[in-house]
């Protein structure tokens, strides 16, 4: 495990938020590599190896997916559903990371077999702590399936 580089997929349309996540994870030296996608369509293309992502060498499967819910074109829940409906992709842990605390979103996410649902805290200290814990848990403690 430790010898293998950990790859994180970040699906987030807000560039500021993406930067916040990336910088925080970098500061904590958690992820070896973070791949950022700003819309659901692109993320799915990568995962399903479509368009420019056909080569498995350059487009390896991530160990964990951080997914925002409100995304342009293809919504986060649709991305989640596509992943969980796909035999090859369904075992990849998906963590929803969103500003939405709506009951409806939480329910629908779990209904679609999300592995974890995290709400972005408004205060940065909490945000930083969350990112740290998230990194430790999903990328440290958590045992990943073989993909």
């Amino acid at each position, binding site marked *: 495990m430790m010898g293998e580089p950990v790859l994180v997929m970040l699906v987030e349309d807000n560039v*500021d*938020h993406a*930067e916040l996540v990336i910088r925080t994870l970098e500061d904590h030296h958690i992820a070896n590599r973070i791949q950022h996608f700003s819309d659901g369509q692109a993320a799915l293309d990568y995962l399903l190896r479509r368009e420019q992502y056909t080569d498995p060498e350059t487009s390896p499967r991530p160990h964990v997916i951080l997914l925002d819910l*409100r995304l*342009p074109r293809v919504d986060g829940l649709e991305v989640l559903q596509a992943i969980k409906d796909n035999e090859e992709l369904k075992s990849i842990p998906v963590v929803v990371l969103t500003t939405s605390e*709506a009951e409806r*979103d939480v329910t629908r996410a779990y209904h679609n077999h999300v592995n974890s649902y995290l709400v972005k805290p408004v*205060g940065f200290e909490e*945000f930083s702590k969350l990112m740290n814990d998230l990194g430790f848990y999903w990328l440290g403690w958590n045992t990943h399936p073989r993909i």
Partner: protein
Amino acid sequence: MKETFLPSQPGDDEKNRLARILNIILLFMSVGSITVALIGLLTGRSNLAIVMCISAVTAIVSLLLARRGMVQQAGFLVLILLVAILNMLLIIGTGIHDIAIMLVPVIILIAGLLLNRTGLILITGLTSLSLALIIWGEIDGILRTPYSAYTDWGDLVIVFIIIAVSTTTVRLLIEDLRASLRRAYSSEAKYKAVIENNPSIIYIQGLKEENPTFYISSQVNHLLGFSTQAFLDEPYLWVQLLHPDDKEKVLAENKRTNKSLEPFIMDYRMTAKNGQVVWVNDHAVVVRDSNGKPDFWLGIWTDITERKQMENALRLSEERYRLISEVSVDYTFSTEVDAQGEMRLTWVAGAFQSMTGYTFDEYVTAGGWRGRLHPDDRERDDGYLEILQKNQPVIGEVRTLKKDGELRWVRVYAHPVWERAGRRLAGIYGAVQDITERKQVEAEREKLIRELEAKNTELEQFTYTVSHDLKSPLVTVNGFLDFLKKDVGSGNIEKSNQDISRISDAVQKMEALLNELLELSRIGRMMNPSEDVSFGGIVLEARDQVRGRLEAKKVEVEIQEGLPSVRGDRVRLVEVVQNLLDNAAKFMGSQPKPKVKVGIRGTDDRGNPVFYVQDNGIGIDPRFHERIFGLFNKLNPNIEGTGIGLALVKRIVDVHGGRVWVESDGTNGSTFLFTLPPIPKS
């Protein structure tokens, strides 16, 4: 004297008849005796005068007796007197050969008329005896007359024969007379009984105007409280008793029939003595005499008060029923399954006609219940029949067509009539109720609920989006503030500036969001009054407002000529076109000849004009045609704007009662279409 001739009670009839005869005889006797007495005095025949005086006195005494009712006694007295006078006349005259012997049959006749059998025998005996004595006196020489020499016992035989013949003849005559009288009396009594015991009143009236009453049967007392006598005393009493409301028409008909002599037949009201109103049926015909000349009116009054009351009650009941039918919104019915197994309507009551528009017969001809059923409800009606065929009642709701084609919702309550022997449905009875209004209210309510639900969903979506999108910049601001602290601490000016700019952008974005949200929430709440505006003018105004962006992207705008006017909030409509033009300019992509066309594409099915804004930009994937109108739904996060524009457009068009949609294959530009209400034709 007068009392003697009055109509008497049936029992006194015989006595009265005798009294009448006696009276005449006595009058003659009195007058005759006095006359003869005077002659006797004048001629110096004093014997005769004395006898006649006695005769006159006796006659007057008898007259007085008869008047006291002692008819038999008076008669007897008179006859004894007559016998006495006869004897005296014979004695003072020429004995048995005197002309006065002619009185014998007269005496016997009078005795027969006045006296009963015993009296007649007594008088006959007395007469015979006195004559026998006179004959004996003459033969014996006690009585001497010029004709005594001719007198012998043979005369006695002759006298007896005369008396016997006279008595027998008188007796027979009298018997016969009495029998006739009895027959006449009994017949009259019978008719009288018929008339007097008839429940109807029989009357006789004269032919002249207002018809005076000559006779009226006694029952009138019972009906009107006035006696027969009252009607005879006041022959026009019947006119006075006519009910004021009927008087005019009765007298008019009276006048007419008096002239035409047609039968008078009429029902009218009269007022009885006690003030009670009675209804009579008056039926009168003209009776003619033996020469065919009209003589009098013979009429019958029948008391029909009870019948009239019943008729009135029936009329009231029918009237009430009719009124109830009019105000009722239901009707009841019964049907029968006929020999062919067909359901046949047999009876209806209530508001049937107003509910169906048909009379019973018309309804049956028009196909009845099934024939007037809305075709889409036939299947449901079949279901109801199936339940009835299981001997269970059913309540159903269907639509039926009225005669004028109007569609009405009705609720039918049907009960089966079960034939036990055949274990089958023999018919149905039930009620039908018009529930159209309730259905309309229900539909209205459903519509409101749906609208409310839509509003709720919209609001939920709104809250959800707003909470998400407003929180995002806050996360950004806080995050970069922390970075800024670190960067300032490490003295990295360049990075610090970048952080500040990120923070500043996020704050601006938030401000923009808040402003636009406020704007969105105002629509529908803060509308300007509707006016008739030229759509062409709106487009020009909108174009001027986005001139900056259009020019920057070198977008050519083509506006169709002669765009119609619409009714609405001008300022908001400008916003619609402005947003669509702005969007078109934004999503031109790499189009070398960017162009936007604004125009009209006919009308929709409700007659509203359909406007369009067409561009030749990047187009919109059909998958996103719905989503783009949602709040903050941006397809491309890198394009400026908050994602509120199309939500705003949709909201404004919605508020105007229109519809907005997009046509695009996702490559060759997009066409946004929307409808707006036209100016109503005045």
